[in-house]
């Protein structure tokens, strides 16, 4: 029973966009009772054509949402008019429309999300499918609106899923880092051994070996998925030590291959194993700072997976606090059903 409630949302939101000519445009969205007006209204100074395009873009992008709410009108405006051929503001308009309705970023997401403006560039001809071209949000590249919460693009032939894991680096630099697994179907038995079909560009040699070994082991445990996939693993932050990313990697791989229940929000996991072929999850270091980080960053719909050994050491009220934020937590000894 964790439905996002619109009761305590801000009535305004803004998203910036860096245009190709070096100017920064701010898209401001505000929400008001609809009262039989249009659902989206846009205004751009001295450029009615761009306002019309913005309304079309926002309406098309709303097709990818599950929750229809016709109670509010969203009014979008730009503080300056981009050039007529310029389209990189489209993603900023879509994100501003989602922010003001509480769909992005997750409430209680990034600390100080209300004060620091998001910055996004991107355009698309297929907004109704949620696909975006040349898109960056903050400093992260995305190809699909669902990638903001790690989901795969349902219309693409490559299934890419992101999962997040906490990176502990001495307190102030703690952050959630993501790992992305992209799988592409190949003919059965086309690619030699399982480990040869897995690539992890950006990692050093030992890291690549580790990733390959982990994924191959977990696919052995799964039983299916051996020899069917070409896999690329990417990390948002490739410079780290330790193996606490392994559970996030394995879960992202299972989600990408369509063999795991899908969380509504992000999947945040920490845990490693010396026996992935048996599906066992073992504990990792840095429990307190990682738990504190997760408690601060989890948002509605997020799923937090922790090693089973942490079950008894969770701070009191940890699960309840996550539940308040709309997230859920499980401490697991093994991956798989139940």
């Amino acid at each position, binding site marked *: 029973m964790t*439905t996002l*409630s619109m009761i305590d949302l801000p009535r305004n939101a803004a998203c910036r966009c860096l245009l190709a000519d070096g100017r920064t445009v701010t898209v401001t969205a505000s929400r008001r009772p609809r009262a039989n007006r249009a659902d989206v209204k846009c205004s751009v100074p001295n450029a009615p054509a761009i306002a019309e395009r913005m309304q079309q873009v926002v309406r098309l992008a709303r097709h990818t949402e599950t929750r229809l709410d016709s109670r509010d009108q969203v009014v979008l405006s730009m503080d300056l008019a981009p050039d007529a051929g310029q389209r990189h503001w489209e993603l900023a308009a879509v994100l501003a429309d989602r922010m003001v309705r509480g769909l992005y970023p997750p409430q209680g997401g990034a600390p100080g999300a209300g004060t620091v403006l998001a910055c996004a560039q991107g355009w698309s001809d297929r907004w109704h499918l949620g696909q975006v071209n040349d898109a960056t949000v903050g400093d992260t590249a995305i190809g699909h609106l669902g990638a903001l919460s790690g989901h795969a693009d349902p219309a693409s*032939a490559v299934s890419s899923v992101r999962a997040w894991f906490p990176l502990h680096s001495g307190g102030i630099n703690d952050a959630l880092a993501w790992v992305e697994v992209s799988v592409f*179907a190949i003919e059965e038995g086309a690619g030699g051994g399982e480990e040869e079909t897995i690539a992890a560009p950006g990692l050093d040699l030992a890291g690549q070996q580790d990733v390959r070994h982990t994924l191959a082991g977990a696919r052995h445990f799964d039983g299916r998925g051996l020899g069917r996939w070409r896999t690329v693993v990417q990390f948002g932050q490739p410079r780290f030590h330790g193996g606490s990313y392994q559970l996030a990697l394995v*879960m992202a791989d299972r989600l990408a291959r369509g*063999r795991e*229940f899908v969380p*509504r929000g992000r999947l945040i996991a920490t845990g490693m194993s010396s026996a992935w072929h048996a599906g066992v999850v073992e504990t990792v270091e840095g429990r307190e700072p990682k738990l504190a980080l997760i408690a601060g960053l989890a948002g509605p719909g997020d799923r937090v*997976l922790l090693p089973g050994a942490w079950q008894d050491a969770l701070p009191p009220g940890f699960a309840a606090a996550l539940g308040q934020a709309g997230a859920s937590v499980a401490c697991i000894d093994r991956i798989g059903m139940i």
Partner: protein
Amino acid sequence: MGWFSLRRTPAALAAAVDDLGTGLIALRRGAGDMAPPGTVVVVFNPAGQARRGAAGKVTCASGDTAFCFHPGPYTVDITPFAAAPEWGLRLRFVIDAANPHVPQQRFDLYLCAEVVPDLDRLPLTRLAAAMQGAVQSALAHGALDLPPCTALVEWHAFRAGLNQLLYTRFGVTVDDCVPVDLGDQVDFAAVLQARAQQAAIDEQAALPAAPLQPELHSMSALPPPDVPDVSEVPGVPGIPEVSVTARPPGTQSGAAQPAAAPAAGADAAGLRRLFLELPAVSRDLRLLDLPAGQALFQQHQALLLRLGMASLNVDTMPTLGWAAPDQPLDASGQARRAGATRIAVGALDEAWALLARLQRAEAGDWPALLDDADRMCANLETGLALRRAPHGEPREPAL
């Protein structure tokens, strides 16, 4: 007159009767037909009221519609997440004996509202597709939670919500549900390969995608239209349909009938569902046990009033094909109106899901759920207002 229809050819009929209880849930019967033993007979009168009877020779008056259904048990596999086709749930359900405490059995209402208009039988696949759509949308809205690596406590909560949802929405009783690996039936790798081939074909065609012009986005809670393949339905039902959609008298003018748009059938079926189900859902909402408190009581009353007004709105809905007397509506206008009906039907589906949640809610959940009910009502009213509007979306007032 029904002697020559395919429905009554002995071979097809015998096959269908044998299939009852396995691949077929319900089959339409005419007056005097035999209902096979083990089945239950439901007779709908033209007003949509149902009465049940025992198996045997079907007796019904002219204008009545009779079905016989087999109570099961049935086993289906559904996919709770469209993005995870290899991970499913195996449900075993039955259609229970009539509950004497309610004036109308939910399964009878389902048959009457969603099966009668276009089918003379209810295949198991159709009900399974509808159930899958309901479960997927409940999971997407957060009404049910089935996260990865589900703990046992979460699984029990999911099961309770699922049982209630399917009982409230379809009138079926789930007696077993287990997670199941569908890897033998579905190959996600093949699905992705098919997508790649489709993308290559699209690129060759090199048609620029026609920009869509949506009135309002209407993705909410809409399972893909599970209209069965035409080849699956041999024969046209011999019994004339009971038209329950109110028609204004103006439609009998002498002007040429407007060409029926392809959307007409879906629009009529949607309005028929709204006409039959809105009173039922608001009756069930009225029967809920409210927690104490004046504020909740007032919200509940306002909700019932709005549903009643929406029901009146449906009863008096203008016909699809006419913009005004003697002024036919063109095909694009008809498609727009049918889209508006789809929004309203989506809201109706949400209303059933919401009813299931309210029936299990604790006092603390009520404010959030009533807020959701407010949203559902607003969507319903928006859909109906757009369906009724003669000329597209009203223009934005200068504010």
